[in-house]
């Protein structure tokens, strides 16, 4: 009998959008180190593959002012992960690091250091954000045309890979009798000339346990998917209903064979929200309550503004939707956040009609239309769904995004993990020592992309 496909799990630290409920009495600090320790150690207790930390390099603004309704403030990614390496033993440590407002030498060195400090548990979610808004915090400003961002990122990773392999295995000889600290003078040397980078020097970190960190990619555009298929070990994608999830899964996996990669070389990991209840009905009630916590009156107006592209501060969240249409010209309202609506006029019309029909206020509508949790049910129901998703190729695992810091995954860890273990689709102990081991990935360097970056 073939063993079932295994479920991989990541624990995403609650971030700076309205998924995170900060107003709940059980919600703790978003910046004190203790919160990160607690979530990471809980995830490790639950045998999760990894802990995940997002990043943002400029505080979000709306209507020209710093957005204040959601969590604001977050730590530096590398620093927290290095400290978490100190208080965990097996858990993977994946962080988002921007490839536009960084230099390859720094990032390569920091990830190599993290991989050494953690004994081979480092992972990098490669993101691009060439918007000039974020660029105002950095030396080069908004220097990169948007359409070049993945070409630039591909070259960035190519440089980093050269650095990570600049110390051959066993080249740190440290022979005290002969005086040969390294096996020869080329150890650590690197040189790279490309369209976006011209660098040379000597790298200071010997070959690390994983050799390279695990690479994740999260962008949804075609360019993003191409980059992910060529460079990624895993794709961190958004949550979708099951049929669409299977479509997305296939769209990535189908890109692999033409590149010379095998299907299991790239994992598909949707970001999902989960509500565990004593029964399916109990969970549904909890889920509705959480959505009402996530969408306050002011938040409902803000969410509406993301579609309307207008200042709607004069509207009452407990009143009806605006009569006026969205402003379809260039986005003027929000900065530092991904735009989601492709046809604002049609969406607005549909929302208005629906709200009228059901007699819903702005807030009530947004609570209903705000992201419904991906999985809602008893522990058994959820375990069955997660199992089914993986067996039917909708996902290879899930990145769980809790709504409460830091205890938001406790119910899942205590109740759902045992169910997954009983089903034979989740580990009962850590058998490997590196993040690559946990994710069942081939060794680094197994495959090399060609043609994505421009020489």
């Amino acid at each position, binding site marked *: 009998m073939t063993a079932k496909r295994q479920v991989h799990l990541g624990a995403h630290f609650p971030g700076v959008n309205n998924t995170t409920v900060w107003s709940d009495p059980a919600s703790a600090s978003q910046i004190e180190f203790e919160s990160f320790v607690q979530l990471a150690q809980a995830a490790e207790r639950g045998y999760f593959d990894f802990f995940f930390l997002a990043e943002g390099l400029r505080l979000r603004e709306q209507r020209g002012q710093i957005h204040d309704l959601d969590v604001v403030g977050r730590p530096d990614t590398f620093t927290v992960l290095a400290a978490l390496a100190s208080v965990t033993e097996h858990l993977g440590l994946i962080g988002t690091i921007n490839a536009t407002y960084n230099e390859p030498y720094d990032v390569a060195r920091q990830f190599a250091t993290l991989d050494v400090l953690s004994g081979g548990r480092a992972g990098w979610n490669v993101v691009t954000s060439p918007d000039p808004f974020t660029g105002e915090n950095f030396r080069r400003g908004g220097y990169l045309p948007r359409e070049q961002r993945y070409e630039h990122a591909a070259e960035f990773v190519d440089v980093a890979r050269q650095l990570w392999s600049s110390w051959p295995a066993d080249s740190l000889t440290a022979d005290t009798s002969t005086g040969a600290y390294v096996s020869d*003078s080329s150890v650590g040397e690197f040189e790279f000339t490309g369209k976006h980078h011209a660098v040379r020097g*000597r790298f200071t970190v010997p070959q690390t346990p994983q050799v390279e960190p695990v690479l994740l990619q999260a962008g949804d555009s075609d360019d993003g998917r191409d980059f992910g298929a060529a460079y990624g070990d895993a794709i961190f994608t958004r949550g979708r209903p099951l049929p669409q999830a299977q479509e997305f899964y296939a769209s990535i996996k189908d890109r692999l064979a033409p590149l010379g990669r095998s299907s299991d070389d790239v994992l598909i990991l949707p970001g999902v929200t989960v509500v565990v209840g004593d029964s399916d009905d109990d969970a549904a009630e909890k889920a509705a309550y959480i959505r009402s916590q996530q969408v306050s009156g*002011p938040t409902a107006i803000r969410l509406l503004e993301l579609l309307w592209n207008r200042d709607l501060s004069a509207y009452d969240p407990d009143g009806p939707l605006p009569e006026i249409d969205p402003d379809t010209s260039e986005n003027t309202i929000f900065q530092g956040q991904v735009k989601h609506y492709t046809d604002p006029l049609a969406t607005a019309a549909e929302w208005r009609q629906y709200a009228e029909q059901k007699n819903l206020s702005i807030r009530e509508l947004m609570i209903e239309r705000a992201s419904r949790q991906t999985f809602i049910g008893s522990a058994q129901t959820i375990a069955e769904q997660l199992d089914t998703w993986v067996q039917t190729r909708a996902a290879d695992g899930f990145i769980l995004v809790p709504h409460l810091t830091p205890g938001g995954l406790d119910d899942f860890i205590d109740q759902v993990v045992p169910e997954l273990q009983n089903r034979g689709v989740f580990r009962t102990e850590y058998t490997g020592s590196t993040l690559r081991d946990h994710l069942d990935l081939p060794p680094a360097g197994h495959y090399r992309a060609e043609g994505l970056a421009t020489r």
Partner: protein
Amino acid sequence: MTLQVELALNGLGWHPGAWRLAGPDAHRASDPRYWAEIAVAAESAGLDAIGFEDSIGAPSATTNTVIDRLDAVLLASFVAPKTSHIGLFPTIIANHHEPFHHAKAIATLDFISHGRAGVRVRVAPTAAAAEVFGRRTGVDIAKLPAAEREAALAALLDEAADHTEVLRRLWDSWEDGAEIRDVSTGRFIDRNKLHYIDFESRWFSIKGPSIVPRPPQGQPPVSVLSHQPVITAFAALSADLIYVTPDDRAELAELIAEIRELEAAVDRGLPPLRILADIAVSVDPNTDVASARLSELNKLAADPLDSDALVFAGNPTELTDLIEDWRSEGLAGVRLRPISNRHNITTITNQLAPQLRERGLLRDAYAETILRDRYGLARPRSRYTQPAEVV
């Protein structure tokens, strides 16, 4: 008055030959457990802080020196949860790097360590350092004719001063109490307590605010190592602590006078510099062994130790005498550079520290955990704090 006693760590020791005598430690320059062991030992001995050396890239072509080095900020972050009192001064390089990244990293280290983060700022005086980034041309300061050296160094220091100013502004960009979690109005923060820093100079322009809330210390202490007046001038402008490298007490007195003059000449806006003397130490319970070891290391390395700081070789009592002698000039502390970790650190923790205590040069136990408190630095308010409204 007691002194601050810091331990400056550089590879397997400050002597380029140290690895040759390191025995089983010779392989451990990038072993996280090696660094954790040293940090825990230094804290057990009650030392005030650890410095982590760093630089950009390794020298090319060499095969007989330690050339591997982990990122200093991340190393400090790794040892932070294993310690609870000792201060942590990772080195950052203020040319080529992004001040925004440095600011958030040190602020985060301050959170992780509960107020024990400092940062030592240095420049990158080589062409090779610039080539690692490939964004501009650098110059080998040491190889320039003497007449051009100071101007070239001054340019690097000018950028470093701006880099440090950006760090400080970003640390101030969140006032205390910006996080309000006001459920009634749905606001997580009071946005009036967050400020753009709008820094602009020839080197960069940085908008802000920081993505990290105000660090526990407000302003993590900034330290600078100086062996030239132009660097001291930079410290006078930008630093809280300065490490100097006198050869003897007389030179120390001159350096202190010079520091106070340079401080007076600039609009410092900070409390007076805390002055610490760097001493490279080959310290052993037996004086002859300490001297012999230094000679042996000089033979093993391609070149003898070329130190800006005094190289002391002797026993803990003699080192205590030296420190006590120098203390009377008005030092805030000393920063010890073990020339060979394997031989010197245990002597420092097990013999030197107790002797310093006996002579009243090192306080008995940690009195505080906040690093600024340890140096007698009050916690500053954010420069952007609005005056209270008059009702």
